[in-house]
């Protein structure tokens, strides 16, 4: 009898275990908004008066900019609490993929092309926001938003993410205080650059720092070097209109190699990450120059600079003056200052969000409203997506007043850019470019061999 009772208990236990497992498995599927995404199922974002709490996942820009965005949002939507969750740029894909299968995340960042959180891949998990944007901006909404944001955040005809703004690369940033301290002027040619570096090194200061073990930034530098040889050639190679083995790319690759051989790149650059290491070294004022794009502009503000310096391990940080400069001319053709850019990140609303209305309200606020875009503009982190929005300089505190003009010049320059940064580079080409550049940097491959392999990769990825 005992045995039979025991068996029954065991069978019942196993049945319960199975039921729990089945329930747990199915829970993920039905746990979120089950409405699906029909493309026109817009949950009215306006007039969201009900209390709600949403979680926003992203890798950029982080505090204090994100605090200011949320603050501006809450001025309009006081009942919606937004929680920012900062993720590491390199670990973003690994974290976001499983999270999107649950209701853990409401609003999440996506990027153009092959970069982390690519809209091409993760857009499938987001609502189509076309109808919502049209409701917010009118039928001519496309004319009001930057085409960079609309084009690269539209996947299979669905607007999966609303771009907060664009970033551009191709320039360098210098520590103006260090340049002034040693009586140096920003280099315009390669010879001047070598001379500047020699002076810094004589004084025990690092010259130029780049984390060449983080490939995306290597692509930026190489892209700029190609532009110096032949503007537009980089895009043509990606479009397969010209081979990577062409002399243009060889010349640029030789120049890339020269940066290492001539000691412009710091010793051990190929083992260093751009974030956090190269960024930290620049913010610790151990190096005077760094390869960063327009996203670095936010550091002209004391609050952002202090936060960044503290994150870099500087105790009692005193903000210093940074300034953007054109990448020095290594070719002698005068093709300097050419920039390229993409929508930096867009905010999408997860299909699994239990607070879709509130989440859409936030995405629309950040990407399409004047208030939200003004907050973006004033953070100096991005060039806003909404036409006509520019930084309100009266509200912006600068480390040094001279930075207003340099930033305005940089943004004007960036707005002339016609070439995308990563938007046209798929994941395979991204990897192939990173490998080619790394192999040349470490001497594992000659420029010729690396470009031949790159071309071979380009042909194989179709």
């Amino acid at each position: 009898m005992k045995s039979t009772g025991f068996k029954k208990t065991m069978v019942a236990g196993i049945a319960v275990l199975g039921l729990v497992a089945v329930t747990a498995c199915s829970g993920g599927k039905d746990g979120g908004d089950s409405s699906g995404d029909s493309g026109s199922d817009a949950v009215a974002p306006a007039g969201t008066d009900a209390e709600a709490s949403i979680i926003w996942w992203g890798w950029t820009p982080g505090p204090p900019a994100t605090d200011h965005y949320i603050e501006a949002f809450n001025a309009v939507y006081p009942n919606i609490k937004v929680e920012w969750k900062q993720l590491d740029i390199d670990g973003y894909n690994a974290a976001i993929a499983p999270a999107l299968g649950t209701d853990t995340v409401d609003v999440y960042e996506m990027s153009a092309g092959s970069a982390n959180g690519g809209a091409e891949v993760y857009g499938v998990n987001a609502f189509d926001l076309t109808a919502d944007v049209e409701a917010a901006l009118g039928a001519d909404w496309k004319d009001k938003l930057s085409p960079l944001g609309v084009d690269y955040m539209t996947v299979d005809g669905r607007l999966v993410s609303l771009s907060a703004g664009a970033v551009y690369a191709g320039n360098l940033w210098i520590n103006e205080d260090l340049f002034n301290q040693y009586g140096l002027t920003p280099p315009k040619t390669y010879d001047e650059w070598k001379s500047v570096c020699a002076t810094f090194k004589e004084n025990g200061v690092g010259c130029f720092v780049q984390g060449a073990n983080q490939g995306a930034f290597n692509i930026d530098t190489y892209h700029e070097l190609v532009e110096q040889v032949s503007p537009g050639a980089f895009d043509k190679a990606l479009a397969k209109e010209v081979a990577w083995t062409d002399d243009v790319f060889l010349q640029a690759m030789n120049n890339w190699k020269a940066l290492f051989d001539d000691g412009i790149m710091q010793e051990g650059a190929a083992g260093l990450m751009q974030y956090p290491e190269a960024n930290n070294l620049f913010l610790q004022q151990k190096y005077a120059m760094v390869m960063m794009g327009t996203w670095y502009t936010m550091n002209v503000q004391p609050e952002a600079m202090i936060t960044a310096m503290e994150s870099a391990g500087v105790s009692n940080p005193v903000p210093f003056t940074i300034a953007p400069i054109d990448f020095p001319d290594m070719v002698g053709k005068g093709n300097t200052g050419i920039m390229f850019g993409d929508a930096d990140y867009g905010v999408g609303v997860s299909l699994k969000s239990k607070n879709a209305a509130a989440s859409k309200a936030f995405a629309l606020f950040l990407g399409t409203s004047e208030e939200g875009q003004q907050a973006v503009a004033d953070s100096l982190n991005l060039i806003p997506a909404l036409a006509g929005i520019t930084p309100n300089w009266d509200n912006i505190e600068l480390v040094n007043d001279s930075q207003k003009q340099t930033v305005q010049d940089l943004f004007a320059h960036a707005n002339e850019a016609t070439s995308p940064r990563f938007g046209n580079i798929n994941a395979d080409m991204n990897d192939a470019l990173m490998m080619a550049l790394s192999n040349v940097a470490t001497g594992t491959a000659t420029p010729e061999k690396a470009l031949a392999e790159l071309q071979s990769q380009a042909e194989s990825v179709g």
Partner: protein
Amino acid sequence: MTQATVATRTEAARKKGQKRLQHSGLPWILPAMILVVGLIYYSVGYTGYLSTLDWNGTSPTVKHVGAANFVQLLHDKVIRQALWHTLIFYVVTFTVQTTLGFTLAALLHSKLKLRTLHKVIIFVPTVLAPATMGPTFRLMFSADDGIINKGLRAIGLDSLAHPWLADPKTALPSIMVVTIWQWTGMTFILFFAAMSQIEPELLEAARLDGAGNLRTLWYVVWPGCRGTTIALAILGLIGALKTFDWPWLITVGGPGRATEFLGTNIYREAIREYHLGYGAAVSLVLLVLAVCGSILMTVVNRRSTK
């Protein structure tokens, strides 16, 4: 009833009892079995299914490609590189860890002062999480102001200062050094325990036969630790094949692919480059290699002990 009949019946009853015991044991292991079969083997099976796909992991469009991922894998230069790195890594780390672990265990079985403190110091790296130590090692190996180069310069060995993680020739050895630092403690503890099991009479006999310390270690203690060494060899092989944390945290598999392993390649392919099917195919290869390697070592060990 003869004595033989009684014995037969007793034997039959014993077997019956054993059988009943076996039956009644099933419900006890069933929940664990369901979990194991449900989670592990289902996951292996699902990985097998994924390996037949060309899929980014999120797209509603799933393309079935059969064995194409495995064919691609055979021609993948990076995979060959990763396997070569794994082999070198295994041979070096296993040899050094075994030598150090065995020597330290033998030393701590002698009349050394502060033995417990020494044991703790040797074992501590094993329990430290790579995620916390990774950034520390990056700083230590830093070309600029890393403690290793600083130390070398401080003692006048400037010429030996080197960008350890930036040079493909030294990046992999750097990862090996860190791995040895972490796992020697575990090797030491296992050897220490194995040495404790050796009969003191055996050691005494060796002494009486005139064997010195080294001879005793080589002819008595080392053979006595054979089982431990084989277990460590198998665990080391599986560990080498699964290597991910240190190379990813310290060098991100670079520079280039200088510290690429199967584990880092799986992550790179499946997560970063959105080739989930290909990543699954590499995972299966890793699994097969680990299982085959373990079986091979066990068989070789059994044959050599016969």
